[in-house]
């Protein structure tokens, strides 16, 4: 195996002596002896068990909730409803001033996805908690639901989330994120071939072997001890404090041992209600997703629909790339506003293309809210881009490896985000992979280097194609809301961060 440092000896970092060797994990002895304490191993007796009653509908108004029958089940200790949650409406990224509160910890007026939590039952055993939950009666009025990102953006589509007022996240008054370089229409006119394709990613459940969960224990020092398997300990702590309207120094979170996460344990879905239950009963509360909860209501990877229209020359150069991305957030924002920005930031892939036009939408639908998963935003775009690259190579009858070498970005090339490329190594990577796979490439591509200018025409941003801040909103679809309809400050800090190139 060769690394970048093998190709670029002057960049060699001598401290890298661990790669390629097996090193024992610090927690490995605990793992093989069974002594590692996961959250569920911290306290196994004297617990109340919290069971969530979830929406059976994708979209419905809640007419009435009756808890009387459940309260009479022996062993049921307490029932939590929306009114018990001090700050019921929240949004995850409010901690970094992104987005507006758009999601209830417990639904009260309507439900926006199948599996949405409505009532929490606390009981002295898992069995009695299930029995109590089974006796909660909720009267629903079903509403039309929308499950397709493009259907959701059409006029007259059911409004998923009233807090947003439209079925997309608002980026500083724009309906989507933009990337602009050169003149994509002129590029299409010059091109020998146009390849216009549609790609669709699936939502994917992380399915960790350990489901999401926590145990909240009232402590003698007037704090609540919380054993959690969150992937984002301080995020969960701060969000719990925010939802419960309490100082965060009254919460003592203990975590760091996660039985598989892959992004699925980033959302703060179990701790706030467990802590609230512990405060209201004075008892330790265990809130652990069943496997059914995990599969049905646990957030998946957000599905993306991606359109790519490319102009390519007979000699293999891509001269224009237009992309339209719809990121399916599901019913609530969670991290998806950021995911759509990541998707835009990854376009047009590691290739030098003089004319680029990208729009990326974060869309609300009545599907399960999506979340982080292993490079979310980027992975979906890469899937679409690399399949597209193979299709382009076939269109102009060029070897797919050589096709990538022709278009690979090189140090100094102007990227679609108006920054010069640094530290490129795609050419060397493709050369090395070709060798390892025994894939013959033409000797002339052997001489290619990321450090030398390539065949692709150097793109220079003209005054007319400055970054998105000053770009006028493009024509619909769908129509952008008039700028200034929402407070510009906190609602879309992400896009500002993105434009500053952080």
């Amino acid at each position, binding site marked *: 195996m060769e690394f970048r440092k093998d190709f670029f000896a002057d960049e060699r970092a001598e401290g890298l002596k661990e790669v390629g060797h097996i090193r024992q994990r610090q927690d490995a002895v605990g*793992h093989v*002896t069974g002594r590692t304490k996961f959250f569920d191993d911290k306290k196994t007796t004297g617990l109340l068990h919290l069971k969530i009653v979830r929406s059976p509908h994708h979209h419905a108004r809640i007419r009435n909730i009756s808890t009387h029958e459940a309260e009479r089940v022996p062993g049921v200790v307490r029932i939590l409803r929306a009114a018990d949650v001090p700050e019921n409406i929240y949004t995850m990224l409010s901690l970094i001033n992104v987005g507006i509160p758009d999601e209830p910890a417990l639904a009260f007026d309507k439900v926006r996805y199948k599996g949405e939590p409505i009532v929490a039952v606390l009981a002295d055993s898992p069995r009695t908690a299930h029995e109590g939950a089974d006796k909660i009666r909720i009267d629903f009025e079903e509403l039309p639901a929308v499950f397709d990102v493009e259907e959701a953006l059409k006029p007259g589509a059911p409004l998923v989330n009233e807090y947003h007022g439209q079925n997309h996240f608002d980026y500083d008054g724009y309906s989507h994120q933009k990337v602009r370089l050169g003149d994509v229409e002129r590029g299409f006119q010059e091109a020998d071939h146009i390849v216009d394709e549609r790609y669709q990613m699936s939502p994917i459940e992380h399915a960790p072997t350990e489901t999401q969960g926590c145990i909240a224990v009232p402590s003698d020092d007037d704090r609540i001890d919380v054993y959690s398997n969150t992937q984002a300990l301080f995020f969960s702590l701060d969000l719990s404090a925010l939802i419960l309207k309490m100082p965060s120094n009254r919460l003592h979170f203990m975590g760091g041992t996660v039985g598989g996460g892959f992004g699925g344990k980033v959302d703060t879905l179990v701790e706030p209600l467990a802590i609230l239950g512990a405060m209201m009963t004075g008892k330790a509360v265990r809130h652990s997703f069943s*496997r059914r909860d995990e599969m049905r209501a646990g957030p998946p990877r957000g599905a993306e629909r991606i359109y790519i229209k490319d102009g390519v020359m007979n000699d293999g150069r891509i001269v224009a790339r237009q992309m339209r991305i719809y990121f399916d957030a599901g019913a609530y924002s969670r991290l998806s506003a950021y995911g759509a920005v990541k998707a835009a930031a990854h376009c047009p892939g590691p290739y030098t293309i003089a004319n680029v036009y990208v729009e990326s939408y974060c869309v609300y639908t009545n599907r399960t809210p999506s979340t982080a998963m292993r490079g979310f935003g980027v992975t979906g775009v890469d899937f679409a881009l690399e399949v597209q690259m193979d299709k382009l190579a076939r269109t102009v009858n060029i070897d797919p490896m050589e096709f990538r070498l022709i278009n690979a970005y090189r140090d100094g090339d102007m990227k679609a985000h108006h920054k010069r490329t640094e530290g490129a190594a795609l050419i060397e990577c493709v050369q090395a992979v070709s060798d390892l796979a025994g894939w013959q490439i033409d000797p002339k591509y052997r001489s290619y280097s990321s450090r030398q200018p390539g065949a692709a025409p150097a793109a220079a941003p003209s005054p007319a194609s400055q970054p998105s801040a000053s770009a006028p909103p493009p024509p619909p679809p769908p129509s952008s809301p008039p700028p200034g309809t929402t407070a510009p400050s906190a609602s879309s800090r992400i896009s500002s961060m993105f434009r500053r190139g952080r």
Partner: protein
Amino acid sequence: MSQVPIQFKLNGQDKAEFIDEAATLLSVLRGKVGITSPKAGCEQGTCGTCSVLIDGELRLSCITLAQTCAGASIETVEGMDTDGKLHPLQQAFLDRFAAQCGFCTTGMLMAAKALLDKNPNPTREEVVDAISGNICRCTGYEPIIEAILDATGGSAGSYRRA
């Protein structure tokens, strides 16, 4: 729910508990005895994280009625290392980086021990078959298979029943 008495051996030691009639072995081990190496991954008999040995046979404790274990000898990972010395399988899992998040590891070790106790020199196919009921979502199957093969020492008879 009425309570019933039960006696069994756990890692060689006698145990006696009063348990719910309908209690699973997993809930008794974790909630009554305080043994936490068997994990509740799915609680429907599909993931293998709750695996234990009952009279030498690999079993899923989450779908085993605890009452049916009266008089049985139950083994968990807690009983694998003795006097501070790791079992050859535990050492091989360490050496081969066969544990990542660790949640499936205890079940994997039980499945591997069930195999090697009966067949000290298995083929690779037999190892794969033996852990086919255990899910590893960190997808570390290859190092796990290599670790189990390592523990056999690669030659007949090198694996000693612990």
